[in-house]
């Protein structure tokens, strides 16, 4: 096993899985990314259930008494606990009054703040989209996923397939954030339960189809 001296390339925990499944891997902005998967012959062109890997994102954890201030700076208003809101180029999930996670680039102003810790690579993201996403999740989680209990822009932390997961509800999809050491197990569990619903794995090139820029709109701000 040899390794040429090379520029650092980031690799998410699912890359090897994608490679084994025949995914096309490319290096984009310093990350190895699975851009596409072979399309299954029976897969619907649109409107089907899709599973995507979005681990190639910056993640920042905000902690301490200044979280409200930092969140307001990112979103334009404070965000209620267990809700999320769109930031400049990502999403802010408010977990507790003193803790928030920013998925996406928070900007250099926030990154330099002592209340912010770069935890990129500490969270991996799975995107589950399609009409049966909620049914697939109900096979893996005991959370109340009804819109009343978990409206769009809601954030809940708890076990999904027995794995501690941050579950975010968007208008057209769900995002499951978990520790990278467990993400392969989570991915395989979702895929397994999704079989009955024709869940297809897709590459990052289809992220744009299911994830609207900014994700959650303005819901969730207080």
């Amino acid at each position, binding site marked *: 096993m040899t390794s040429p001296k090379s520029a650092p390339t980031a*690799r998410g925990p699912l890359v090897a899985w994608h490679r084994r499944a025949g995914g096309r891997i490319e290096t984009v902005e310093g990350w190895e990314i699975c851009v596409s998967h072979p399309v299954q012959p029976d897969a619907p062109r649109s409107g089907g259930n899709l599973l995507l890997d979005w681990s190639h994102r910056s993640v920042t954890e905000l902690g301490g008494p200044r979280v409200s201030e930092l969140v307001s700076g990112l979103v334009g208003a404070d965000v209620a606990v267990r809700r999320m809101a769109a930031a400049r180029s990502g999403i802010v999930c408010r977990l507790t009054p003193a803790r928030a996670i920013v998925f996406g680039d928070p900007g250099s102003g926030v990154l330099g703040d002592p*209340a912010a810790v770069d935890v990129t690579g500490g969270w991996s993201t799975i995107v589950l989209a399609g009409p049966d996403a909620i049914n697939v999740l109900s096979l893996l989680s005991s959370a109340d996923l009804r819109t009343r209990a978990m409206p769009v822009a809601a954030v809940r932390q708890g076990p999904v397939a027995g794995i501690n997961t941050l579950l975010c509800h968007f208008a057209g999809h769900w995002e499951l954030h978990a520790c990278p050491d467990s993400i392969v197990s989570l991915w395989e569990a979702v895929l397994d339960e999704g079989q009955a619903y024709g869940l297809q794995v897709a590459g990052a090139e289809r992220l744009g189809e299911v994830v609207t820029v900014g994700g959650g709109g303005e819901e969730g701000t207080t």
Partner: protein
Amino acid sequence: MSSQEGPCTFTFDGRSITARPGQTIAGALHQDGVHVVSRSFKYHRPRGLFCATGRCPNCLCTVDGYPNVRTCVTPASQGMAVRSQNAWPGLKWDVLSIFDRLHRFMPVGFYYRVMHKPRFLWPVFEAIVRRIAGLGRVDRQSGGSRRYDRQTLHSDVVVIGGGWAGMHAAIAASRGGRDVTLVDDRENLGGHVLFDPGARVDRETEFESTVQAVLDDPRIRVLHRATAFGCYEDRLVAVQTGDRMIRLRAGQVVVATGGWEQPLVFPGNDRPGVMLAGGVQKMLWQDGCLFPGDAVVVTDNQNGYRVAHSLAACGTRVVAIVDHNATPAGDPGDLPVWTGQTIHSVRGHRHVTSAVIGPLEGASSATESISCRWVVQAVGFTTASGLLAQAGCRLVYDESRDLFRADQLADGFRAAGSVNGTFDIDACAREGRLAGEVAAAGEGGGTVDLIPAETSPPVRRPPDGKKAFVCLCEDVTDKDLFDAVAEGFANIETLKRYSTVCMGPCQGKMCQSSSIAACARANGVTISETGRTTARPPEQPVPLGVLAGRAPHRHLIRRSALHDWHVEAGAVFLDSGAWKRPESYGDPAAEYQVVREGVGLIDVSTLGKLELRGRDVAEFLEFVYPNRFAKLKVGRVRYGVVCDEAGIILDDGTIARLEEDRWFLTTTTGNADGVDSWFRWWLATRPGWDIRLTNVSGATAAMNLAGPRSRQVLAAVCDGDLSTEAVPYLAASQLTVAGVPATVLRIGFVGELGYEIHVPSQLAEHVWCELMAAGAASGIRPFGIEAQRRLRLDKQHLLAGQDTDALSNPFDAGLPWIVKLDKPDFVGRSALQRAEGREPGQQLVGFRLEGDRVPPEPSLVLVDGRLEGRVTSARYSPVAGATVGLAWVPAELASNGQQITIQLDGQLVNAVVQREPFYDPEGARLKS
């Protein structure tokens, strides 16, 4: 109904059977003239369809390798292989039917009293008993191929039972603005009304429109073919549908489970051809089966008249309606009625040949035999109230209705319809609507207001007789129950356990009422005084696979960011909790050697990693660790153990000060989450502290580059000065390694010059590969935890959790220097202060055992033959030329040179205590 469109063919015990579209297996068998479908549990008596609605044990068969399938509710499908159960060599001639003749020697509870003497014969008996007991055989091969899963659903209102009351409850709850889940165990809604055209007379349109209203209501989710088998705390309803278990969380629950039709107890009541009315109606109208020949209908209510008319309409000659009442309970038309009579017995072996009819309370001389093939019983229902009882509702015996019903409901529960003992169809609808409205208002619970009982007369019980079965599942007769009571098992609960009545596949549906009545009669008390047995889940037998869900097939595996590299490198993995860790790459001895002589690289990403920021971190660390940190300089790292309030070691790790107010801590693999929670708990007690704790365990990967050549390898990919002056032992440096910002700790768990390199997880493989490439010329090898364990034992470095336990404090574990009792209060201080002044019991020490025999963990340490300690870790050490290890030994043996005795492979071997490391005791290599 099945969606199957044309006829299908399946086999029953190898014989080909054709089923009409939508027909059940049992329906097709009946139509084909197969009226014996199983053999009974104990006496191996021939059994035929009895309830035909999925409640009794009679139609259980093995279908495609799966035992105990209720064939009367299982649609037939093409190619199915159906086999009868509990019969050998075949259903027709079953050798074990000899037990039916030997019943005198097999009274109830006989297995408690025989076969245990002489003792040496018990294994023989046991083998025989095991072979012939039980129902069906699990096919291990096909048993593994089924896919079970589990789902969680939430609903404002859950209605259990899709009969008339349940449908009205669901509609009412939906109209109240609630989302409703209706659980029904049949293919189609409607309950027993579905199979009883007489009950629908004049309301066919109303019936159909009600069903349609439920199906069309977007607020109502209908779970068809779904059986609610358990009610648990906080209105958690367990539902089985096929191979899936649904955990249904309900805001309110309406139980509309209806009733179970009750059989009479009379001699021969188990003979094929004796059936319950509801089953006959279902067979006629759903399965399209006929009952050729003559039939006797025994009844005490209108139901019997309706089934008699149904039979007559389908070509059966109804030779008698035997009515318990003095005047007919229904309109017989031109069918013959025998009033004030009941059935005394039936005759026949493989099928009923005649019924003996006589007065309800009369002498047997007044009986008359009527030739017939079918005896149909329609003598009322008992309430299907098991789920209510499980939920904590109080059930009382209602004398006027001769049944148990709930009079006090648990919070959030309502009951409606026949489960309340209400059998009038309009009253059921009214109760259903009321229950739905109350549930929608969130006001379930409280006392039940019953709509007054209509004309449901009590079930009258016929005289006793011989081999009259109370329990079809376990072949328990009424005589058995009387005998058991006479033996002292007079309480209904002990009677159940001793006789096993109600403990078979029907779970009391067919036999609970009769067994309570028999118990009451035998004791000479009332049914009220007798009471009923405790209802426990499951209400209906559930395959273990359904309960297990998919968990056995899908357990969490945690993989480090370098996992795929290890796989490619041929690592042999070890399960460490949920983690997969490389135990070795095939040759742990060589891996050990390369670290001692050259350079090795190990993945230690599984360590817990915490980052603490803020002004008060030093004060916090002084509080949660027994050693000192306030004066730790920026750029330095220190070892620490975390103790609880009792001074017991919880964990150990390193604490590095990266900046004045920025610290980086590591924990052991197994305690990463525990230490995180422990710290957060203490932080919560002082909200004023300026501390921000971030768990960076996942965000940071770690690798340990160790060995005398490690500096030169690191230098090849690192831009900084790595000399001992610049990066001394116990330095904590921020360096760029292979182009990646890294925290580098100069520590040496394995006892060599070494660097613990922490980098962002997503870049870990890049850094690892660069180090491997840079070390190629130095002969670098990856090493696994087996080599690491050997290396650390040379240095007597303990592993928290492996070498310590729930009683170990730092004094006993050989770490007294870490406890600074002269500093202000810290967690565990007073306990440690007491421990310091106490005579130690056992101490953790190093030991050396000549030779290469390695005592397995935990081998015993013996003193004068007494157990006085244990070995926690041991390995052969090439540098020591002997086996070395750590062991807990009595304090008096804990000094250098003391001899201890270890039990090894049943022999006693002597080892010598050595308190200083076996390798490089001065630490010169570590600090080089």
